């Protein structure tokens, strides 16, 4: 049992991870070599290939930092500072997660309401759906600064503008998934409810909503990741006081590539946690209720 798990789950993942690390180190050597050679030549002493490797892997501002450097920076920022400190990546992740989750909640609410309207009303289906799709053709990078500026003018700063950007990205997959889910109901089941003379509300709670849950959760997994993207994008034009986006921005201002990479690492870690949370909720709600595996 344990050996099977090792063979089937751990081994493939570990193999890919090792391959990625190997390519990464080779890439770091290749990309950092010109700068490293320049530095070694400037020092004026004779140097060998081993010196070059050491120099390329230990630069202060490398073109591509090694995984070791990123990990050292990441763990230092996590371990050396309390979570409320401005230099702690956990603190920044918390700020970003806060606005991402607020935006996610707003987006899911908006998306679900739109889906309900679209499914239950023909006029809304015809009038809203094209706009819902059109809304996603606008590049978020162009809209984000405007949302920040407009909301800032109205007196909203900090979390809300970022959450609105997340919401803008999030509602779309929720609407599309839930419309499909609410329409996925077996026509026979609808006939059955009619023979019981069930009210529209009873049909919704006992039939349409449970039938839509598997679709909804697929959408929620997409939505929760892009809510994080929205929050990070929203942190870029705010000038960057806190959040993973501001770490990325200040890192690129000052050429701190290591800082950028460790912020990226934190961002992907955070999205993994968020997806795991949605998957857990899905297990409890859908599979726990007898949904087919």
């Amino acid at each position: 049992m344990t050996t099977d798990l090792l063979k089937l789950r751990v081994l493939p993942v570990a193999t890919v991870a090792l391959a990625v690390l190997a390519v990464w180190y080779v890439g770091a050597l290749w990309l950092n070599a010109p700068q490293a050679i320049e530095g070694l030549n400037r020092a004026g002493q004779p140097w060998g290939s081993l010196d070059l490797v050491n120099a390329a892997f230990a630069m202060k501002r490398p073109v591509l930092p090694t995984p070791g450097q990123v990990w050292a920076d990441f763990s230092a920022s996590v371990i050396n500072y309390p979570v409320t400190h401005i230099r702690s990546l956990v603190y920044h992740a918390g700020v970003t997660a806060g606005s991402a989750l607020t935006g996610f909640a707003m987006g899911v609410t908006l998306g679900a309401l739109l889906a309900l309207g679209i499914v239950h009303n023909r006029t809304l289906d015809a009038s809203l759906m094209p706009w819902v799709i059109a809304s996603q053709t606008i590049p978020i990078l162009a809209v984000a600064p405007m949302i920040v500026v407009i909301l800032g003018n109205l007196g909203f700063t900090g979390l809300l503008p970022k959450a609105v950007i997340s919401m803008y990205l999030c509602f779309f997959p929720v609407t599309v998934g839930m419309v499909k889910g609410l329409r996925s109901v077996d026509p026979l089941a609808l006939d059955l409810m009619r023979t019981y003379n069930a009210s529209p509300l009873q049909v919704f709670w006992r039939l349409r909503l449970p039938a839509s849950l598997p679709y909804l959760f697929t959408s929620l997994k997409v939505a929760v990741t892009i809510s994080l993207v929205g929050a990070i994008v929203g942190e870029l034009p705010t000038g960057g006081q806190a959040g993973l986006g501001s770490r990325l921005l200040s890192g690129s201002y000052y050429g701190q590539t290591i800082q950028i990479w460790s912020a990226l690492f934190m961002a992907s870690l955070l999205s993994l946690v968020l997806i795991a949370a949605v998957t857990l909720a899905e297990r409890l709600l859908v599979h726990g209720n007898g949904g087919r595996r």
Partner: protein
Amino acid sequence: MSADSAPPDAARPPAPVPVIEARGLSLIYPTADKPVIALDAINLTIDAGDFVSLIGPSGCGKTTLLRVIADLEQPTSGTITVEGMTPEAARLRRAYGYVFQAPALLPWRTVERNVTLPLEIFGTPKEDRRRRAAEHLAMVGLTGFERKFPWQLSGGMQQRASIARALAFEPDILLMDEPFGALDEITRDHLNLQLTRLWATTGKTCVFVTHSIAEAVFLSTRIVVMSPRPGRILDVIDCSDLPRDRTLDIRETPEFQRIAARVRQGLKEGHSYDD
């Protein structure tokens, strides 16, 4: 029951009580090229306690007729009454339970909660719901499967659960639309036997749509043979010569063979076997 306005047989001791009566019932679907006559001037009377099978090839309107009785389709002309009311009033009074071609069980509910679904909608108290579910699951031989989910059951068991669901609120009429059509013959024989016992013990009026001659003869007190394009009644065959208490062996009797031959003859006259 009779195909047209034949006088009721006064010789039979208990006077038959008509439960479903159709007079000149027609249903025409408008389509792009030409209208489809699904039902053409149907006259039919079904008495209380009857087991009536509607048989015919695909497209003969047998399912449509059942759906009209259930108020799931609206007739274009003619009249139909169910327990003396319009089909809609009968539906609102919960006069019938409907069993579909597919079990149509909700996959996120256990077998028990599927059976209690209509009771939940009618607002039956919880204790009562559980008692009735247990009772009707026992009736279809599914005791012990209350906590299982539909996908954990075989096709035959799923269909039995859906019959238990249709019986759960104790309607007077059971409408069944090819409930065993998707099952293998062995399972079908078994379920037919169970169904005939169920009918004998509950005394419900059953209307059963099928395209199996053997099934129709085995189950019915009367068989209605229908033909397609337009949907018409060709023949109504009385099966009261067969005993009410039936086992699978009666299929070998000459009486059974005679009725089956007459059904086949009726289908042939309706051009059901033409290319």
